[in-house]
């Protein structure tokens, strides 16, 4: 269900923990699975659970507890904007409004062409870089003025 490369990455994570504690790698394994498949359908979570010798329900508990796992399909690029108080004082809310207007969608929605999903996020631990956006969970964009947002969307559009 997962590529050889993903499985190798998961094996490297398993090796970080004591040999009788494979379950410790579940967060990393779900992340790696999500990167390959775009989101986490039920069958994929079950596959990860079996790979780590843990009950599927325990893997599902993890997948549904941490908010960066996507249990439903998302667009090719997921953009999460922080609107928490420290960011909001430096334009986080305005950045979110600008993105909604540019993409023509609301939070938790995906553009009709399936390219972009927009999310409102909680504190990313980068308040000094406000406005802050996270692209596809793993790439942080700092000091996002409207000009930089335009540039970012144009770059992502080509990918």
């Amino acid at each position, binding site marked *: 269900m997962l590529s050889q490369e993903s499985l190798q990455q998961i094996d490297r994570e398993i090796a*970080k*923990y*004591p040999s009788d*504690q494979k*379950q*410790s*790698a*579940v*967060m*990393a394994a*779900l*992340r790696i699975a999500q990167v390959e498949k775009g989101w986490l359908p039920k069958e994929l979570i079950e596959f990860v659970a079996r790979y*780590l010798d*843990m009950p599927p329900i*325990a893997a599902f*508990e*993890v997948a549904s*507890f*941490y*908010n*960066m*796992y996507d249990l439903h399909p998302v667009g090719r690029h997921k953009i999460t904007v922080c*609107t*928490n*108080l*420290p*960011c*909001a*004082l*430096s*334009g986080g*809310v*305005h*950045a979110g409004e600008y993105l909604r207007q540019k993409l023509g969608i609301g939070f938790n929605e995906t553009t009709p062409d399936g390219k972009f999903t927009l999310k409102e*996020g*909680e*504190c*990313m*631990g*980068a*308040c*000094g*870089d*406000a*406005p802050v956006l*996270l692209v596809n*969970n*793993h*790439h*942080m964009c*700092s*000091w*996002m*003025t*409207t000009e930089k947002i335009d540039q970012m969307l144009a770059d992502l559009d080509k990918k």
Partner: protein
Amino acid sequence: MILAGCDGDRTWRLQDYVARGGYAALRRIVAEKIPQDTIIGELKTSVLRGRGGAGFPTGLKWSFMPRSFPGDKYLACNSDEGEPGTFKDRDILRYNPHSVIEGMAIAAYAMGAARGYNYIHGEIFEVYQRFEEALAEARAAGLIGQNILGSDFSFELFAHHGYGAYICGEETALLESIEGKKGQPRFKPPFPASYGLYGKPTTINNTETFASVPFIMNMGGEAFLNLGKPNNGGMKLFSVSGHVNRPGNYEIPLGTPFSELLEMAGGMRGGRKLKAVIPGGSSAPVVPGSVMMDCTMDYDSISKAGSMLGSGAVIVMDETTCMVKALERLSYFYFEESCGQCTPCREGTGWLYRVVHRIENGLGRPDDLDLLNSVTANIMGRTICALGDAASMPVQSFVKHFGAEFEYHIENKKCLVPPEVQRAGSQIYVSPSC
């Protein structure tokens, strides 16, 4: 101290850290076989207090570890930095990752732990990758792993990446998360020093705490203490955000006047008037600007002002801020991040948010402030972890210090600060130096 001599993304590698004097402390400890008690004693002298928020003396915490316990013992570094306003550990990890690695290795030596994990906040994946690279450098140089620097001391260290849950910054939730479970805090006691990761003795410290250890070992506990003020040893990183000209991290001696820190951060944006400050991360009670201007930045002074130094996250708000709206956003955060385990927190945080939300939206009722106080009183002290308290303290302090603004909202069904003024004050702002 920790960030001194660091030049952003250019000087984080092992060779740069060594050039700054890095790993000298670990080398000396291993070569001279310095006794564990000497190291812990030095930390006690330094009065290094936990930099994650609670301010618990680190030396004392380390002395709780049952060093003679023959089985596995663990260390965990809490880099799950998600408290609104706090962004210092991210800079330590990306600009000086080896200071954390060396600090953890010294801690492992002092407590007899053979394995450690650094739990890194989900949203900073790029920093997690850099820390992994730094670990690989340290491993290749024999600074972590088996028989460190040719001695009989071994310590394995790994990075664990979170995936978006504020609660995992709570130390027992963090341990549950490393075990591959939902991050729901454990009941204490037993404390982690006796029952921690995988049920073994474990010590958890914040990133900045570990990063301070090599410096204390090099300069001596006394010298470190003297950098700060009595009972508040050393330097501390302060993350300044909000309505200032230069948001960012500032590493200054504990006891520095708030007014100086504000000046370092470029002063108030647009020359506007200071209204309020949250001095220690979103969970710390808000302090009116005038009171804050008389405070020094240390645990005792901020505590005297009725708040907490917490993680050192200073959120600055000017006169364009609507305090009801500010609290509404914070209350939503705690509602969203409550793990749902304890009823008072799970139900209470939602209740707090809904009441503040209705006040902000002109639907407040005359007895809503009493209701808010009553709900917080029924959350505090009645939950397994401190998230319930963390959600309550902002509410209590906002209502206490800015009650008139809340009452104005309820009576007039609108903000005291006109919406266009609020909008202008919260425009996208990026410091020209960025």
